[in-house]
């Protein structure tokens, strides 16, 4: 039984289209994933991903629901640690340091690698306090007015809220809340911003604003975005990774990286038929 499993694993590995999964070289990678698999208990949400994330680039993760792309995103800042029973195999290297190494403090990782979620999760505090939260928990003392103004300006929200900083963040619209979350995220001065379907709950106009903001922010930050919106991936990202969920020889469902490349090339001439089917809307 065990032997069988091993053999199938090896076969699976050998048979997988290595040409498609061998990642493109990127200049100056911030993250390098080497053979990463993430498990929830016994369930392997995503299997054997090898992938670099380029500095000051926007990398988009696309693929059908259940392909493990959000799970993979959450492994970049160890958010999966918060889910009981999750564990990771392989190496997630941040500037050459394995962030799952024994001496690594996940809190320090999260200060360098911020995250924006699908639902705008503003805190039940004022707009000002939302932005000031990160610097405060990271030990900032004294007046944070300048930080708050700078971050809200960078998040293209300052002009809309500058007279209402003391108001509850819940008074803002969904799109404004999501920009507030981005302002709150950059107030911690991260190097990388992870975005998990940041526009999924927004209308097209708010989405367009967030997309403009992402492109603008990519000058200073490295961004990894999970999206179900292929046009969004095509519009904003420099590189795209396409994932899918498939059954292995033991009929076990798991997520796989199918193809990774420059967005333009991946969308115009996909190297794998599954990618082509997905981006042309034939499944997913």
């Amino acid at each position, binding site marked *: 039984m065990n032997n069988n499993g091993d053999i199938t694993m090896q076969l699976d590995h050998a048979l997988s289209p290595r040409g498609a999964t061998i990642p493109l070289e990127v200049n100056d990678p911030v993250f390098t994933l080497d053979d990463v698999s993430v498990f929830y208990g016994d369930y392997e949400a995503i299997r054997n991903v090898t992938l670099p994330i380029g500095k000051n680039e926007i990398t988009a993760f696309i693929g059908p629901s259940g392909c493990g792309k959000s799970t993979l995103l959450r492994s970049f800042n160890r958010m999966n640690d918060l889910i009981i029973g999750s564990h990771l195999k392989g190496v997630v290297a941040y500037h050459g340091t394995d962030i799952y190494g024994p001496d690594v403090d996940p809190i320090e990782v999260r200060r360098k690698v*911020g995250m924006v979620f699908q639902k705008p*999760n503003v805190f039940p505090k004022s707009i000002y306090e939302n932005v000031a939260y990160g610097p405060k928990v990271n030990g900032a003392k004294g007046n944070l007015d300048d930080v708050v103004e700078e971050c809200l300006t960078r998040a293209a929200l300052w002009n809309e809220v500058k007279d209402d900083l003391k108001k509850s963040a819940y008074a803002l619209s969904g799109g404004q809340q999501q920009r507030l979350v981005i302002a709150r995220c950059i107030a911690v001065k991260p190097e990388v911003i992870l975005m998990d379907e940041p526009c999924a709950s927004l209308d097209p106009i708010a989405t367009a604003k967030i997309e403009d903001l992402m492109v603008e922010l990519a000058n200073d930050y490295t961004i990894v975005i999970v999206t179900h919106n292929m046009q969004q991936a095509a519009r904003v990202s420099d590189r795209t990774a396409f994932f899918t969920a498939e059954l292995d020889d033991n009929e076990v469902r798991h997520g796989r990286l199918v193809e990774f490349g420059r967005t333009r090339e991946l969308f115009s001439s996909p190297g794998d038929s599954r990618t082509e089917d997905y981006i042309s809307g034939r499944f997913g």
Partner: protein
Amino acid sequence: MALNTVDETAEGLSLRQSHPRYGEKVIRIILFAAAFVSIVTTFGILISLLIPSIEFFLEVPITDFLFGTTWTPLFNDGEFGVLPLLSGTIVITVIAIAVAIPLGLGASIYLSEYASSRVRKVLKPTLEVLAGIPTVVFGFFALEFLTQLVLIKIFPGIEVFNALSAGLIMGIMIIPTIASLSEDAMAAVPSGLRDGAYALGSTKRQTAMKVVIPAALSGIVAAFVLGISRAIGETMIVTIAAGLQPQLSFNPLIGMQTMTSYIAAAGSGDLATGSIEYKSIFAVGMLLFILTFVMNIFSIRLVRRFRQAYQ
């Protein structure tokens, strides 16, 4: 030209109610009656308190009642100054709250933010068992165990019946109320807020203190208020452990009588119906009713204000 929308002569298609729905009406009446019973009871209690209270205040001036410092209703020439009962209630309630709020809130933070789900599954029901212990048991525990085996060694001058033991044990009795309701409030905080806090590099403590508790504050305040109301209204523990001696004092080492324990003690005696002593029970009951009523109104306002601020 107008469209011919309604055809008066149309036949065959009937959209009228085909049969009467008596069941709907019956259910509505039954449910209304269920809600009505509690309202009627409240008003009934209020009226039954009000009439003897008014009769009481015809004989004893209300200023003597509210500001008098001696409570000796059973003496021939009795005095009806309620301050000793009020001070007893306040001292014991304050002690109880000083125990119950930190421990209850601490337990709820632990259960909601720190405990693994396995620990929580065991701990929360165990804690709630505490709420099911009859208060008379708590009363004897305070008198026989806490006072005579523990407190007497720490405070050699302590009286056998004392406010401290009653307050401490009452606090322990209230812990599950506060812990359980606060935990419910914290568990209801969307996990997205926790994720947001952790993603900004918060520690567990920072997430709990700066995000989860503020978000759950209205529920936590409601839990506190319910706990305080239980402390003010609690009767058995104080009757057994704090004695029946009305004393205007804030010294917790001596015996005290609370408003509730006066009502219990006098009500179970053989006072003649219609006597001034008998009516005094209702006057004290009225004061108790007003105090808890004002506190509930205050807390509803407080909760509403937090809700406005946070939603």
